[in-house]
Each structure stands twice: as structure tokens, then as C-alpha cells.
């Protein structure tokens, strides 16, 4: 019998996956099985709408190595839908499961529904230039990024919980794991961001942006070029397709042109403000407010004005 499966190694995201799973259940009337890497997660997921939660117990802790075990669970049910949390590890697992199922997969689905017996998802293309509806025949796999959905409320009846012992990936040895953290900074949580691009001529000049950020009580973010090519700011602060995706109340972009690969990471911001000396820079089309001018002149004036 087919079913709906969810998996994420991230406890918060694992709960969020149950929201689209419950929606799909309304159309498909199939049971939801939540696969989890801890007993605590499994028990909690069983109270949030999963009909069954399975704790995949293993001596091996390497998340990516659970792909085969997840495939083994999912393949017991024919023609299923598998929703996997879209972390980098989750995407690795999801594509493995999809390949083994010989299934289609949609990456970073923003919406999901059943249409004519197929899974219909919305997602971005060309680094955010376009949105597309992608139709996936069942069985189907979809990854969903964190915070795409809210976690569901407690269900009226709790599901069952079981433990299955599985083995991991023996061919890969995991050595040191160093938490990177973001030194206390969570760009995703900041309500205001001042984002810098290569309009700044040297690293020291970022002081102008830091001063403005301080006046606004904002955090500093940047483009890929500033983080990866210039190494002026940590990689964790760069916004864009392969970097962070943020939705602050204010995104103040300084000296960045607004290429689509960057904008996809910030375009859901409530208000976007641009400061750039090139009137034709695409950032102005993407901005609510903007100043055409030299950032070296504008920033000190703006910082002073906001300080008053």
C-alpha cells in the first residue's frame, strides 16, 4: 500500500514536513510515516500527525549514510511520496532515494499538491529568474527547505512509534566534525540587513557599512563575491542561490548590482533599499527605495542622518 513518508535529521524541519504531508494525506488518504534519527524526534512526530513514526537506530551517526535505510523503508510501499528536509545532507539522501526508487524528484518545493494523480510542486529555476510548476509521477520525492512551512498543531490521536535497527555507509569514515556556527550571528533571524557588494573598493571600507548597520541595528550581509572571492566577510554571511536565503523587514543593498543569483536569496524581504552609483544596475528594479550615488558619499550621510 502506498504512503506518505517524511524524513529530516533536523528536528525542527522534521516537524515542518508534517504540514505538507497532512495536506497531501487529505487528497491521497494514505498514512504518514515519519522517519527519524532519534527516539525523541520519533515520539514527538507521532503526536503531530504522523500515523507511524520510525526511529532508525544505528551505531553509525553519519546522516548521509542513512539513505539506504530510508530507501528500504520507503520501498516497502509502492508509489509513495517522500518528503525530505532540504538541508544539504537531506538533499544528498533524497536524490539517492529517488535514484533507487527510479523516481522523479523536485528540489526545494515551495508548494505541493496532488493533481491528476501526480505530485505538482512549485519551485524556482535559473537561480530564481523564473518559477515553474513541476509535475512528478508517483513515486515522487521532494525536498523542502526549512521554514517553508510551519510545524502543525498537535494531532487529536497519536501515531505509533517503532524502532528499526539499520546499518550506515561503511565505505566512508567520518573524521573531525567542526561546528561552524556563525559566531553568534544568525543572518536568517535578523530583522534588518545591510548587504554589501563589490562597489566597496577595499575591506577597510566596509567600516562605512558597519557604521550604517550599527545606526540601523542591522546585521551585515554580503554578495558571493565579497565572501568567496575577496574573503572580506565570512561565507555564512553571503546571500544568494548557494548561500543564505533571508526575509528581513529591511534589506539595504549597498554597492551590489543585484544579479539574479543574489536576489533569489533576499527577494522575499519586506522592503528592499538600494544604494548604487549605476542607475542602470538591476538592483533598482528590485528595490522599493533607492539612491543613485557614490556609496562613499551617501553612506556617511545616511549613517549621520539616522543617528539623529
Amino acid at each position, binding site marked *: 500500500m502506498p504512503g506518505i513518508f517524511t524524513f529530516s535529521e533536523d528536528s525542527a524541519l522534521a516537524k515542518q514536513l508534517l504540514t505538507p504531508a497532512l495536506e497531501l494525506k487529505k487528497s491521497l488518504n494514505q498514512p504518514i510515516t515519519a522517519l527519524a534519527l532519534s527516539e525523541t524526534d520519533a515520539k514527538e512526530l507521532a503526536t503531530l500527525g504522523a500515523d507511524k513514526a520510525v526511529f532508525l537506530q544505528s551505531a553509525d551517526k553519519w546522516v548521509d549514510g542513512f539513505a539506504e535505510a530510508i530507501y528500504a523503508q520507503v520501498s516497502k510501499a509502492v508509489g509513495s511520496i517522500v518528503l525530505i528536509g532540504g538541508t544539504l545532507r537531506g538533499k544528498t539522501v533524497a536524490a539517492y532515494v529517488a535514484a533507487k526508487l527510479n523516481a522523479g524528484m523536485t528540489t526545494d518545493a515551495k508548494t505541493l499538491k496532488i493533481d491528476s494523480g501526480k505530485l505538482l510542486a512549485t519551485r524556482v529555476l535559473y537561480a530564481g529568474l523564473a518559477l515553474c510548476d513541476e509535475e512528478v509521477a508517483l513515486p515522487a520525492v521532494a525536498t523542502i527547505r526549512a521554514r517553508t512551512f510551519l510545524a502543525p498543531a498537535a494531532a487529536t490521536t497519536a501515531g505509533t512509534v517503532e524502532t528499526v535497527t539499520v546499518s550506515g555507509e561503511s565505505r566512508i569514515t567520518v573524521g573531525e*566534525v567542526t*561546528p561552524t556556527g556563525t559566531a553568534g550571528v544568525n543572518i536568517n533571524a535578523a530583522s534588518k540587513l545591510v548587504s554589501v557588494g563589490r562597489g566597496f573598493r577595499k575591506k577597510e571600507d566596509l567600516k562605512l557599512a558597519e557604521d550604517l548597520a550599527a545606526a540601523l541595528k542591522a546585521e551585515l550581509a554580503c554578495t558571493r563575491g565579497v565572501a568567496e572571492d575577496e574573503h572580506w566577510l565570512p561565507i555564512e554571511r553571503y546571500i544568494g542561490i548557494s548561500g543564505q536565503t533571508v526575509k528581513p523587514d529591511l534589506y539595504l543593498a549597498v554597492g551590489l548590482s543585484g544579479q539574479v543569483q543574489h536576489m533569489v536569496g533576499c527577494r522575499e524581504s519586506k522592503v528592499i533599499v538600494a544604494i548604487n552609483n549605476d542607475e542602470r544596475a538591476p538592483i533598482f528594479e528590485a528595490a522599493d527605495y533607492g539612491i*543613485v550615488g557614490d556609496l562613499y558619499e551617501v553612506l556617511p550621510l545616511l549613517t549621520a542622518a539616522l543617528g539623529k
Partner: protein
Amino acid sequence: MPKCLVCYKWTLDEQDIKIRPEDLSLDSSRAKGKISDFDRNAIEEAALLVEKNGGAVDALTYGTATVKQSLKDCLSRGPEEVYWISDASAENADANVTANVLAAAIRKLGQYDLILCGEGSSDQFNQQTTSRIAALLGLPCVTFASKLSVEGDTVKATRKLEDCQEDVVVKGSVVISVLSEINKPRIPSMKQVLGASKKPNEEIKISDLGLKPEDLQPKAVRKSVKGFVMQRKNVIYKETNAADNVAKLKISLASEGLI
């Protein structure tokens, strides 16, 4: 000395794609092709590994008829030989089809120590191909590498994940995807560009891969594709006096409740 294979995709340069305002359809008539951004990092990494350790780099690509335009660019970036599969099925291929084709071609080409891909293509960014190829070939898979080294038959990789860096070690053949931060792809020198025309390229016919017709049928089908249009206010202050502009912006920020 590692024998490396880099898989790359020839994509449209999204910077040249315009959105038609009347129906939000995409106009790619002026878009030129490029080797997908992150795949250039994969090619560069393979070239660097071989420059350091000896060995060889081949490249493999699957695309429509336009894929031939990529061969010289690819070869100028380091690979000794490029294998290419040109087939109309690539136009609508999903990651399942792409991985089926690439995995079948790799089986035909023989064993490689490292099979390298970019973390995702710059057009679809499915981020599936690496994992799928590994699954189909029954090889271990290391995704999102920010650092790679080879010692004998051992590959060491540092993965960069959302919240940690993870060091992993693999013995024997492995499929790897690299992040863009792993290196800065070279801008091929005139010598490398000229040298590329002397390097071999070989077509692999899709009909020689032993694939069934359904292997080339996408399971994920793009239905409507529409340009993303942002609804923004576009209030731009461009007086010559910067102080006037700043004063106006301050009023705007206040009206939005942001200051």
C-alpha cells in the same frame, strides 16, 4: 595517481534570459551557452588534483546539439579528453534521465577513482545528479566538498554543511560534488585555448548506452515556467545633491516603520 572524470552541463547563461512582460514567458533567444558555474569549479578541482598528484582528467557531458559548443572551453580548462552525448532527450531531461545517461556512459568508459560534479547546475539547480550517479553506480558519495586531497587510493574531503565542517575519508572510487568556494576556476590562457583544439573529443551515441526508452523519459516534468516579477515600489532618488537623497530616503524608511 588519480584517474578523474568531471561531469558538466552546458547551460544557458541566465544573465541573458529576459522576461517578456506581456505574459512573463522567458526569452532566451539572446542567451549564450556556458559551462554551468559550479561545474567549472569541479573541472578546476580535477585539474588541480592532477597537477599535484599526476593522473588524468577526462570530462563527460550530456546535452542537446548545442553541447558541442562546450568542448573547446572544457578542454582549455584542463581535461585531456572530453566525451559528449548529444541527444534531443536532454532538452526536457530531469535529474533522473541525466543520471541514467551519465551513469550508463561512465559504465561504458570504465573505472575512475574520482567522479566530480558541481554542487548543482546553474539553470535547474536540482542538486541531485551527484547522489543519483553514486546510487546508480553503487559507489560511495561525498557531496558539498570545500576541500579535497588524494593520497594513494584514499580521498580526503572536507564537507561544508549548514552548521559544521565535516572531514571524511574514502578509499577507492567515489562520486564527489564540490562547492564553489573550493577554488577559483582559471581563465584559460591563450596557450590553453590553443592547446584545447589539439585535444581529443569523442562522441558517445546514446543508442550505444543500452538504455531503455523509459530511462530517457523525464519523471519530473516542467509545466508552466514563468518569469518571477517582483512587485516593488521603485522609488529612486537621484538628485545630484546626495544629502537631499538621504533626507528623502530617511522619510521613506520612517514611513515604512523601519526607523
